[in-house]
């Protein structure tokens, strides 16, 4: 299995692993999920119909309503949230979101994670050391 290691900066510590959900877009909060199921319900979203529960979310940055972090906190409280975030460019929405949901997150990596990682790859996130290990999904 081909492995790639990306190095970046901690946003929030901890370790977690799971399958990647990747978008080359910024990620919203309000109006994106059914919080009770973790399913993405937003029309036109790259992940529409997919479930974020247990996944490692890989995306450019946060966007949309300032309630962003509250939605990820709600997902976490319901047990339907992602296990980690890999963010091209952390902003105040994503920073607050991962702090509130207490899941490991890494940003400012040596390569754009949305270009290197594909949906379905297996991802290990070491938040404390800012390391993301990618095991490519074999086609």
């Amino acid at each position, binding site marked *: 299995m081909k492995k790639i290691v990306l190095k970046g900066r901690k946003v929030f510590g901890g370790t977690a692993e799971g399958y990647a959900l990747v978008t080359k877009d910024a990620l919203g909060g309000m109006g994106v999920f059914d919080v009770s199921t973790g399913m993405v319900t937003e029309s036109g979203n790259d992940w529409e119909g997919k479930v974020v529960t247990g996944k490692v979310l890989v995306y450019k*940055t946060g966007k949309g309503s300032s309630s962003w972090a509250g939605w990820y906190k709600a997902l976490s409280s319901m047990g339907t949230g992602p296990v980690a975030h890999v963010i091209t460019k952390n902003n105040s929405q994503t920073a607050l979101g991962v702090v509130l949901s207490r899941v490991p997150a890494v940003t400012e990596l040596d390569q754009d994670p949305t270009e290197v990682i594909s949906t379905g790859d297996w991802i290990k996130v070491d938040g404390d050391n800012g390391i993301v290990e990618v095991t490519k999904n074999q086609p």
Partner: protein
Amino acid sequence: MSIRYKIVWFTIANARLFYLKARRAHTSQPAGAGVSCAVSMKLTVDEVDMLRGKQGKAKQKAMEFLLRYGEALGAEQFADTNNVTLCICPEMESLRRITPALDMDEYISKDSLFSDETLVIDKLKAFTTSNATYRDYAYPELQKGGKDACDAAYIGEKYCQRIGIVTLNSCVPYQCGNIPTKGEHCAWTESSAIAYCNSIIGAKTNIEGSHSAFASAITGKTPLAGLHLDENRKGTIIVQVDIEMDDVLNWGLLGYYAGLQAGLEIPVYTNIKNIPDLFMLMSLGAAGMSSGTIALFHIPGITPEAATLDMATGNGKNISVISYGREERKKTHEIFNRSAKDDVDVVVLGCPHYSLERIAAVAGLLEGKKVHESVELYITVGRMQKAIADRAGYSGIIKNAGGVLLEDSCGTHLDIDPSKSTASDSAKMLHYLPRMTGVHDTFLGTLKECVTAAIMGKWTGRAL
């Protein structure tokens, strides 16, 4: 959780600062993974006092939270802030789950201060105002959750007032008395207000959520990172505007298009020949923060950090340029105008909360007329604008015509039948309304086109 502080004194320009290194060890995560992390920010005497609990346990908890948040942002220190806007509007379900006695002190302690011990806040450090609460108590039947939701909002409002938050209940605080000055460090929630605060006023705020803004209100501190730093406020992409920008609709569409295109960049809108008014700028910011994350933009010659294009970009070189013309406007407009029929069932205006000028314009168009019997017309405003509209006679005209002027509320929280076709003059509203209510058939037009639709029950708006 244990905290160890190592404090080193030193002096900078007559001011004594603490350098504090706090090391925390988390013992568990929801997923069960063991975690340890180190926090390292420069702290002042005041901040250390708060962290040590010398100013009470609530401030201590708030500072601990701000430290975690500041570290996540990569901040090295805090900025003082005396200007916060936030939203404390609990849902009744979560309120009951956290505190069966509906005790807001207990709710806030557990939800926002991460304390099992109930902490009573007696005074905030920062001047703080409240965002829209999404509920007008006079119309529980029109809003999601009915009376229960209104009761929860009321409990939240009374709590805000008790701890010293000025309850503007408005998503446009800058129209209601919370007007920052250029360069002022703020901690604001509400995406459209954040864009306005940064871009039009030239004050500095990141996109705060309720939890971080509340901690800032308690402590008077916000992490010095992101848009608080001048080096992060320069324009990094040029959006060349090749059409007339002569009405509010055009500004909303421009913002929405730019939000889709700009990605991580800070746009500079160039080639604009029209001087925008208040609501045009509000619409530009609101839309750009809906489709994207444009918390700051510049317009050379108009906005305060952009006297010239060079100033807007910090003399940046090789800045990419995207064009916005008729074709881009048409495609953006079509995102929202997707009804196969021309019947209009609901008209939602007031996103962001309407200015007095817009309220007066609606009243002027409705005077002597009636909203069509099959149409619901809602206009959302802050309570300050509502009070003035009442005395100016606008509210009476709108009510007599069959419209509903809702104070403190938001169209996304109206209990709208998703099968109904809905018109609005706000790209932001029509971005969120399908996502929050399930409506599918929508129309985006000018204020006049929307009020005409309310009267006729038909969409006659122009295609762009």
